[in-house]
């Protein structure tokens, strides 16, 4: 059976190592294999790795690979191919946008046909999690010039055609090692405009639409939603302005009715963030920390204590980048106004916005910056390094303790010790209210009547898991 899927943006390339864009992932997830996989709940499992990777020394991980796997062009998928892929990723020639996921890669060697050693620049406890994002490419074929236009992988689907700007077609690979999937051919179309996406589904032209607006859930034949990796929040400047006072920061958290945001603005398709920048599936999640309650009276009191009643606060945001970014910003601004602050909401075009988000040398920061954090590695390090460690590009504090903790945790091999550090960080950040924690929003898919599919927490759309009537 054929199905058609609408994704938001067209892949800029189909080279699985080059770009960091969602469109590319959506397609290539079905063409390539990874060493590790996750189940629908997000738990890490084995992909083409035959056993759980082991850390043979602080900077080397050993992976074993399933035997007998071949690429769609007949090349064997062996240790050499994995090692090649890793070397390819860090090759400066390729200059991959994905490097930030694989920044610890130092190199790889094929030890034997099915064993590969991955070297890291330092101790990297989360390398297995990273491998979940790393696609294995065929050494021969990937050197062809048109590899980025006509990829060859080892997954259940193989590339058929790419009509630029219009569609990409994949078909089930008849030689695939696993059982034949139900869907024999899949067409990806690219539509950014939410109204148009909805109408393609309503017109019966397509079977699956990503990023459906919550408001449209009632209108589509079938809808599926799942907690996503997206965490909208507001960075608060702990170094200056009225937000330098922790009481003010706490007040800002207390002033917002997150339940209402989730139930009304997102029509129930969001969860209240539990006082931390992580979801429950993340490594480093602290179960003891919970969300700030909605308590505007207390917020006012705190503001009064801090002498910040009627204080001025600038809230910087952008528009059209993330789901309901502008709305959320305005609502947050509204709540803050409601507790008596003088809120100046500034919504900038993306580049201008980034200029304000990136931490500059002189440390001049806006009081509050709206941001949506998305962390595909499901590990605290990436988010914390970026927004909580003072050296992070988006950090709004200069607390040395945070830097210490986060740096230590990054290379801590012992999982329990690592978890312990993160719990401290979470607790401290919550106590100090370094952020305004908001929500964890759901991904929503619209589906045609005939399609059945269970969405995953990582948002991946494996066609092989779909069935049509």
């Amino acid at each position: 059976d054929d199905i058609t899927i609408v994704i938001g943006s067209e892949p800029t390339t189909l080279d699985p190592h080059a770009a960091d864009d969602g469109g590319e992932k959506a397609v290539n997830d079905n063409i390539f294999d990874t060493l590790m996989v996750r189940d629908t709940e997000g738990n890490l499992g084995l992909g083409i790795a035959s056993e759980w990777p082991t850390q043979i020394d602080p900077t080397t991980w050993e992976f074993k690979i399933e035997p007998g796997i071949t690429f769609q062009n007949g090349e064997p998928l062996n240790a050499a191919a994995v090692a090649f892929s890793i070397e390819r990723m860090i090759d400066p020639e390729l200059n991959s946008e994905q490097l930030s996921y694989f920044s610890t890669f130092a190199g790889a060697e094929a030890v034997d046909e099915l064993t590969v050693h991955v070297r890291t620049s330092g101790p990297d406890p989360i390398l297995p999690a990273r491998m979940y994002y790393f696609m294995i490419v065929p050494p021969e074929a990937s050197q062809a010039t048109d590899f980025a236009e006509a990829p060859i992988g080892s997954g259940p689907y193989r590339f058929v055609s790419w009509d630029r700007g219009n569609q990409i077609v994949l078909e089930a690979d008849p030689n695939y090692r696993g059982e034949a999937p139900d869907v024999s051919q899949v067409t990806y179309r690219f539509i950014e405009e939410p109204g148009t996406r909805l109408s393609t589904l309503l017109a019966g032209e397509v079977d699956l639409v990503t990023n459906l607006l919550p408001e449209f859930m009632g209108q589509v034949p079938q809808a599926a939603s799942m907690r996503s990796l997206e965490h909208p929040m507001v960075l608060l400047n702990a170094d200056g302005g009225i937000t330098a006072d922790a009481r003010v920061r706490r007040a800002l958290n207390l002033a917002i009715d997150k339940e209402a945001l989730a139930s009304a603005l997102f029509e129930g398709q969001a969860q209240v963030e539990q006082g931390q920048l992580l979801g429950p599936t993340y490594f480093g999640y602290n179960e003891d920390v919970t969300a700030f309650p909605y308590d505007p009276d207390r917020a006012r009191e705190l503001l009064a204590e801090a002498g910040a009643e009627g204080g001025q606060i600038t809230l910087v945001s952008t528009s059209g980048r993330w789901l309901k970014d502008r709305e959320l910003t305005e609502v947050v601004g509204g709540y803050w106004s409601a507790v008596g602050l003088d809120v100046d909401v500034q919504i900038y075009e993306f580049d201008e916005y980034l200029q304000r988000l990136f931490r500059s040398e002189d440390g001049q920061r806006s009081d509050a910056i709206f941001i949506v954090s998305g962390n595909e590695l499901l590990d605290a390090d990436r988010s914390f390094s970026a927004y909580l460690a003072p050296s992070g590009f988006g950090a709004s504090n200069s607390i040395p303790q945070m830097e210490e903790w986060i740096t230590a945790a990054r290379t801590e091999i012992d999982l329990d010790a690592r978890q312990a550090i993160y719990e401290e960080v979470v607790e401290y950040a919550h106590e100090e209210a370094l952020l305004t924690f908001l929500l964890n929003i759901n991904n929503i898919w619209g589906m045609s009547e005939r399609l059945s599919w269970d969405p995953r927490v990582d948002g991946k759309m494996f066609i092989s898991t779909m069935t049509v009537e």
Partner: protein
Amino acid sequence: MGGFVVNRLWQGAIVVLSVVVVVFILTRLIGDPVRVMLPLEATVEQRAAFEAQLGLDRPILEQFVTYVRDVAVLDFGESLWQRRPVLEIIVERAPATILLTFSAIGLAVLLAVPLGIVAALRPEGLVDRVVVIISLLGLSIPQFWLGLLLIVLFSLTLGWLPTSGSGGLDHLILPALTLALPALTRLVMVVRSTMIDELNAQYVKVLRAKGIRPWRVVGVHALRNSAVPILTIAGWELIRTLSGYTVVVETVFAWPGLGLTAIQAIERQDLILLQAIVFVTAISVVVLNLLLDVLFKAIDPRIEMNAK
């Protein structure tokens, strides 16, 4: 005539060059492609490396000289965002936009002329009023709204046409219609007012006295006399549309054209692609202007084509 064309091409070259220069300078001023292109979490080293790779660390003058040298041989470089030659992207996307704009403006002209004429035959009459008010309404409808409305009507309700994407003629109809409407309404007004003027002209009276059939008086003589102003506006609409007003329609109908590419290039700060698109737009404006001038000459013998 030949001299005229050569002369205009010269002028056009200057226009294109000035656009290129200005765009080059401005694109270096307004944003930081490194910031936008790389993921938020990219390290400082990665940023520096990327900057070096783009050549953005070199003095701006040097960058400019390199750029102009490359453009002179039609080497626009490689897109930062798509990582392939910019020319390839443009060659790939331009036809869709050209097809869309030309059919939209063509449609607008084809519809505007009869409507405008009917309105002009009895100024302030009932038909005139209806035409004018409808075109005014058309003018004030937001384009994306109209687009979605047409989708709802023709794709969802009636199921006649596909909602979006490109492909056969059926894919073209809705986007072209959406794009045509504002141009159509402006054109109707122009046709109407020039036709009113022409129909008041003395030569029309003479034609009537000669016993020339009314349809000929209106449809051949007066219309041809109105052609230059009408085509001026139509050309203007075409140029405007080409230089960016297709973005909305291309977005709504997921039409893989240059407009969409341009806005994506801006979003991603893909300077190289952006410069190339601007360059191509400028050239098409110049060429279109030239074609229009030649066309006007064909229509109106009074227009002198001196190489002045």
